[in-house]
């Protein structure tokens, strides 16, 4: 699924990365806990989160997520936006809540992080 399709499906607003909407997203994961993300995340992830401080973008950069989708209409702070610009990480924001946003994406064929249940 491309970022553009994801944006339309979730009626999301693009905060950073208007030129990156052709990027293909292969899998996604949602959490408000950054060390969960650091434990389950894999490079290429679309991260759905309700956590909007700069740590969300720092965490995304560390694990090399493709993009962040903020849920519940959250918007990242200035430091987060600046880092996302610098690192080329698209930031989007949807009004949907976490469960609905994940459900919509999953039911349209975007899988979760593979191997999560089989992780040693």
């Amino acid at each position, binding site marked *: 699924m491309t970022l553009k399709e994801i944006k339309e499906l979730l009626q999301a607003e693009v905060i950073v990365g208007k030129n990156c909407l052709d990027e293909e997203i292969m899998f996604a994961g949602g959490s408000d*806990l950054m060390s969960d993300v*650091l434990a389950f995340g894999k490079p290429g992830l679309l991260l759905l989160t309700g956590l909007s401080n*700069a740590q969300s973008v720092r965490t995304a950069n560390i694990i090399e997520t493709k993009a962040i989708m903020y849920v519940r209409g959250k918007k990242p702070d200035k430091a987060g936006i600046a880092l996302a610009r610098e690192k080329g990480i698209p930031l989007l924001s949807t009004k949907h809540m976490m469960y609905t946003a994940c459900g919509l994406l999953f039911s349209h064929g975007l899988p979760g992080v593979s191997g999560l249940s089989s992780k040693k």
Partner: protein
Amino acid sequence: MTKSDETLLSQHFEITGGDFNNAGKASTSIKEILQEIGIDSSITVRTSIASYEAEMNVVMYARRGELTLNITPEKLHLKLKDEGPGIKNIDMAMQEGFSTATDEMREMGFGAGMGLPNIKKNADKFELFSIPGKGTSLDIIFCLNKTEKK
């Protein structure tokens, strides 16, 4: 000094306890350095994750600390040393889910109790020393030589 433990690169970062605005910046810089010098991308991700978790712990629990990155032809070594309350029960702290994080820290996205176990999982070698009331130090080592097994 043999050739294999010759230091190729060494970088030092100061970490301030409670400074959540800057929390994670040292690890972000470390990641940039590793990318710049062309370290294997999976080792770069594993090192950055470990560094970030360790840095966050210093910010969350200690008064101050330092993070040193040392690279030799064979190893990448992250050393963290902090002045703070230390860890009384290391076995407990190493368990997934154990956390003494405050509500404020949880609101900021931390306190899953996943940090230390995840550092250990990503590292090739991991050692934690702590003196309660004084501080904690971590040695996190990654092998750059791919024939060495994880």
